[in-house]
C-alpha cells in the first residue's frame, strides 16, 4: 500500500503557496472512529498531507536529489474532523529552504473552511536515494501533476492488515500521575513499504495518532464523564528514525489541567535514547 496523502498538485512553485488536494474516499485505508463513533480520516494524517504537499514542491526544486523528513513542528490545530466523501484542499507555504532544512506552514480546508493548520514546521533535508530511488519518486510526482494518481483504496486483503494503525499495545504503568506504554514497530506493517522503500521508518504522524489514542484512554479512565477532545499538538520534535522491530517506550504526564483544558506531555525513547517529544492539548 502507499503512504501518500496528496492526490493532485495544482501549484508547485516554492515562492508561492503550494496547492493540492486529497480526496477522502470510502475506500480510504486510514479511516478511524472518532469519540462520537463516526468514521473519519485519521486527523494526524491531515498534517501528513500538508507536509507531503510541501515536500513535493521542495523535492522538485532540488531535482529530486534531496527530500525533507519530519523534524520539528511548533503548533498543529485540529479544528474539525474530515469525513469520507469530502475533499481536502491543501495549501503549504515554504518559509525558507536550503541544503539542510525546509521551514514551512500550511493548512487544510474543506469547502473553503479551514479544518487543520500547521505552524512553525522544520524538516531536515536528506539525500533522496537514502529513502527512495529518484526515478520512482519522479514517476509519483508526474502522476500528481497529471492528475493520474489512483485514489486511495482499501486493498482487497485489507482484513489481513491488523497492523495498519500502530498503537501502544503494552501498558507498563497506567496511573493518574504517570502512564508508561510500549509500541513495537511491526516489521510487516504495510505502511513501511512506502515509508520508505529504501529505508522503512515509522511515520511521525502514525506515532502521534497512537499518542492521541493513549491520551483518550487516559481521559476515559481518569476523567469522569470525559468530554475532552483533541484540539492542538505542539512542540513536536522527532530526533531519530524509528525502524522496524524498535520497541518505543513512551511516558505520558499531565502538564497542566483546568476545568476546560488538559495538556499532556509525551516523551518517547528507544533503548533510552530520546526519539520523539510533543505536547497535546485537549479541550471541552
Amino acid at each position: 500500500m502507499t503512504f501518500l496523502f496528496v492526490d493532485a498538485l495544482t501549484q508547485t512553485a516554492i515562492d508561492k503557496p503550494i496547492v493540492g488536494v486529497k480526496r477522502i474516499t470510502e475506500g480510504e485505508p486510514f479511516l478511524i472512529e472518532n469519540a462520537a463513533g463516526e468514521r473519519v480520516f485519521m486527523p494526524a494524517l491531515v498534517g501528513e498531507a500538508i507536509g507531503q504537499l510541501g515536500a513535493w514542491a521542495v523535492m522538485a526544486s532540488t531535482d529530486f536529489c534531496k527530500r525533507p523528513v519530519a523534524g520539528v513542528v511548533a503548533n498543529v490545530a485540529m479544528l474539525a474532523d474530515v469525513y469520507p466523501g469530502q475533499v481536502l484542499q491543501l495549501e503549504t507555504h515554504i518559509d525558507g529552504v536550503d541544503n539542510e532544512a525546509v521551514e514551512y506552514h500550511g493548512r487544510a480546508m474543506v469547502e473553503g473552511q479551514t479544518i487543520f493548520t500547521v505552524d512553525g514546521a522544520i524538516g531536515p533535508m536528506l539525500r533522496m536515494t537514502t529513502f527512495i530511488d529518484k526515478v520512482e519518486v519522479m514517476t509519483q510526482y508526474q502522476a500528481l501533476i497529471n492528475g493520474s494518481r489512483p485514489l486511495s483504496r482499501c486493498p482487497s486483503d485489507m482484513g489481513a492488515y491488523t497492523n495498519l494503525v500502530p498503537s501502544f499495545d503494552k501498558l507498563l504503568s497506567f496511573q493518574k500521575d504517570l502512564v508508561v506504554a510500549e509500541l513495537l514497530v511491526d516489521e510487516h506493517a504495510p505502511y513501511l513499504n512506502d515509508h520508505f522503500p529504501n529505508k522503512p521508518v515509522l511515520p511521525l504522524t502514525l506515532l502521534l495518532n497512537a499518542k492521541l489514542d493513549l491520551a483518550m484512554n487516559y481521559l476515559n479512565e481518569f476523567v469522569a464523564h470525559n468530554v475532552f477532545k483533541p484540539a492542538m499538538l505542539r512542540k513536536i520534535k522527532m530526533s531519530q528514525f524509528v525502524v522496524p522491530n524498535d520497541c518505543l517506550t513512551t511516558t505520558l504526564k499531565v502538564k497542566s489541567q483546568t476545568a476546560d483544558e488538559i495538556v499532556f506531555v509525551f516523551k518517547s525513547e528507544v533503548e533510552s535514547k530520546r526519539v520523539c517529544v510533543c505536547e497535546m492539548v485537549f479541550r471541552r
Partner: protein
Amino acid sequence: MSVEAVYPKVRHIISDVLMVDEEEVSIESRLIGDLGAESIDFLDLVFQLEREFKIKIPRGQLEKDARGSLSDDEFEKGGVVTDQGLSALKQYFSETADEHFKANLKVNEIPTLFTVQTFCKLVTKQQQAGDVEQGTNSEAVA
C-alpha cells in the same frame, strides 16, 4: 543588547528546546556534552531564537564567524580541522574550556564546542547586524 542582557531569554529557550530544567543550564554549559543536544535541536534552537529576537541566523553562521578570514584549505583538510583552524576556533569560542579543543578535531565535531554563551554572542551579533542593515536601509530611503 549585550550577552548579559540576552542570556536569561536564551537560557530559557535552550532549556525549553532541550527539555532540561533551567537550573541545569549555565552560561558555560556545552549544548551537546552537558545538555544532550542533538542535531535536530540546533535547527529548533535557531528557529526559536530567530522568532524571539526577530533576527536572521544564516545557516552555518557560527562556523563561518569562527573561521574568520581563513580559506577552506587553511581551516580544514579532509574534514579535519588544521592547527591554524583550531587556533581560530579557540579564539572565537573563547568561552569554551581548552580541554575540548582536541587535536584532529573533525569539522563535524565543531558543534561540540558550542556553549550557551556561544548562542548569546550569536544573538547579539545578529541583532547588531540587523540594526546596521536597518540603518543602511533608512539612509537609502532618505
